[in-house]
């Protein structure tokens, strides 16, 4: 039977180094994508992912009965992303390309044959949506990303963000209100 995250971390603590690799394999995708959606550029997101996992397995983690491992992992990831964003901004920013332009969105030469295609349209749409989410105020962005892309329930989001349940409700609501404006054109075309 597959071991749970908590069991793996205990196994690691009692001297089974390979457990680390298993945990990493299990959660690398979600943590990387969480960082990517928050920070908006690939290089920083990869860097932060690396930092997060290193912290976890430097024996800093003490299991706490009432909180799931993944919740804790997201909370750590969230803090790491926040410091990364802050450190970027501290440098006065103009040395760094803004989100996306280094690797997040690949520079591509458009093939004329492909121009009118549906493929291009949905690419364009994905770009706009990414942009709109990135431009949300940071707390709203965090809450909304956790909800929409990671399907976390409100209680867990409250734990990850360290705020009250009501606060989560408001953050998600405000974020949606903004996106409803910035993505109005795309939303119109969706069918339920």
């Amino acid at each position, binding site marked *: 039977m597959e071991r749970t995250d908590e069991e793996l971390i205990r196994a690691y603590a009692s001297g089974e180094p390979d457990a680390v690799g298993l945990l990493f394999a299990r959660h690398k995708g979600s943590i990387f994508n969480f960082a990517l959606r928050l920070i908006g550029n690939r290089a920083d997101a990869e860097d932060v992912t*690396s930092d997060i996992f290193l912290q976890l397995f*430097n024996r800093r983690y003490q299991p706490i009965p009432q909180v799931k491992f993944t919740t804790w992992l997201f909370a*750590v990831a969230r803090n790491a992303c926040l410091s990364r964003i802050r450190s970027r901004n501290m440098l006065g920013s103009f040395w760094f390309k803004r989100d996306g332009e280094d690797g997040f969105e690949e520079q591509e*030469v*458009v093939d004329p044959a492909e121009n009118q295609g549906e493929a291009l349209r949905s690419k364009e749409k994905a770009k706009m949506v990414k942009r709109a989410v990135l431009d949300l105020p940071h707390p709203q962005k965090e809450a909304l990303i956790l909800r929409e892309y990671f399907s976390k329930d409100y209680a867990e989001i409250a734990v990850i963000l360290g705020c009250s349940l009501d606060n989560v409700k408001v953050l998600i609501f405000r974020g*949606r209100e903004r996106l409803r404006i910035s993505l109005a054109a795309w939303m119109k075309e969706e069918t339920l």
Partner: protein
Amino acid sequence: MNEHDKLLISAYVDGALSPEDAVRAKQLLAGNPACRAYYDDIRKLSISLSVVKDEQLSPDAEIQIIQRLHKETTYMKPKTWKTAATVCVILIITALALQTYAKRGIQGRLKQATNDIGDQYSAKPKSDGRLRDRNVKRPDNTGSTLQYDAYYTNTSVLTDKSSTRRASGYVDATVYSSGLMRDTRVIGTDVNNDSWGGESPAVTQKAKHEINDQYAMASAANYKGFLNKSPIPDQYQYNIPSNTEEYPFFNENEFLTTDQNPLSTFSTDVDTASYSNLRRYLTQNQVPPQDAVRLEEMINYFSYNYPNPKNGEPFSITTDLAVCPWAKKHLLLRIGLKGRVPDEEKLPASNLVFLIDVSGSMQDNNKLPLLKEGFKMMVRQLRPEDRVSIVVYAGYAGKVLDTTSGYDKEAILSAIDNLQAGGSTAGNEGIQLAYRTARESFIRGGNNRVILATDGDFNVGISDIGLLTNMIEEKRQEGVFLTILGVGNGNYKDDRLQSLADKGNGNYFYLDSIREAQKVLVHELGSTLFTIAKDVKIQVEFNPSQVKAYRLLGYEKRVMAKQDFNNDAKDAGEIGAGHTVTALYELVPPGVNDVPVSVDELKYSRTQPSFGEEVLTVKLRYKEPDGNVSKLITKPVGKGWLQMEPSGDFAWAAAVAEFGMLVKDSASRSKASFDHVLKATKSAKGDDRSGQRQEFIDMVETAQNLVPENSGQINFKGGNQDERWGY
């Protein structure tokens, strides 16, 4: 449906309500169609959001992480626990020391770098007067105030303007113009106000690592408490990302003393691109970059009611003097030219080469599709004796239509319809081919013209602007004129296009809408296409006994050396059929000492006041379109012409200039204000058949919400100007 209901429904969609609230939400949904629509909206939003798919960690990064993990975990094996603890303690101490050091270090550096960027520690942008209020009321959302974060990619305008601007001064002009300078986004108040919060980028990699260790420990220590953490402060401040539009940098004209510089010389300019570009920005609720605001192009966007020229001269010259509306002690001088309107039958045949950029960057709706419509409207105006050829360029340049008579409109229109965008841009090759084509179908005595339509982003081939302009200057000698139609946003290269048009005996327009295309290519086609005079230069000589100092409004890129006025080899602006050109001067009468003037008065060569009543003389030189020798017109202006306040068209031009100075945050704007602009424009609107003036008034109202007004740098105390002038 109120905010609370919406909130309730938003949480209901996610199944996050308590049983009682859920019942309430269900009632709302059952009873109120608006609520049901809102419920659907939220689900649609989820679908929209889902288009952004998860990405994969790149294999390289993954391998690196696994290697690091492996190294760390073997190093941190339980057996070595004691050693590890000792090492840890040492590391932490080092890290703490380094952190303090690094903090100090970075503060020192930031003092220079952030003077204009904002206080990084409080993370609030400096409350400079130019900082934009982001709580903008959107016209389409009357009543509710939104925090407005533009999501367009082209939003340089809303970045803290002063920081971008001034930074460009000391960063490096090339860094700025190549778009490397990015956002000054600031994440707000420190959320985790813990010891590791001040992690500093200046820390070395090693130290950083150590700080991370410390950070992780602290995280763990804090972990138990983090359920009870205080809520997130909800106020986060953002600045907005920059873009890659490029505008030529220029300094505003300053006041010059008449003693030192009695002559003011400039070339005429009939371009209007700056105005339509400004309009694009304002309709997107953005403030344009200062360098994109050129007063002369704004003033000349409007046509003014000057008398038609008489006695076979190509121009009439009109001059007015009035009290300057934004500095009551000063005077405002208007010089207006109007070009002759030739009879339609006498218009020379046109040989037009449309040179159209069809590169990938042109596929947006406001680029190629707009141009196609514009060209089609224009082609419908053509006469049988006119000829059109079409050259397109993308990765390569090619001719898609050989020279075709205006009689065969169908062929031209279908060629335009077939244009599609795709590929990279080799503008240079296209321009060469276009001039070659123009040469091949040259009409002697006709109007030979290349019409270049582009967003200006030449990214393949010789894109060196210098080489291109050299080539265009060469072609100018052969009698081919150039018209440039600029389109698009986000990547718009205003500086290149303006400079190309200058060099190519050309004019330059910015098309932001089908309406603008109609203005340039249909209503004003005559003046767009038919040049009635070229190398039109104006020189004004001021009488030092009547004018102490003067300032030319706009025309910064057109100012010429005084000796160039009589030098026919020097290129200057072209004037089209029926075109009007307006220039404004702000004059300081003698005895008024409110303007800082840079040079001391001359001790020895005092000009004796003569021609007491004459304030100034306007001299104008022009060449016939095919001539090489210039002709001179002079016109003295006396004091008797003084109006109290500008009226009619003059008031309109003054208001446009005043508006330009406000948007530009001009140092010389004195008491200019949006309220005054609105007042003046509303009374000077006149018979506004085209609706252009009303549109301007709307723009002023938009800008008033976006641009905070500062008092100008020059302060005025009251005083009666009339006395000084002996009235």
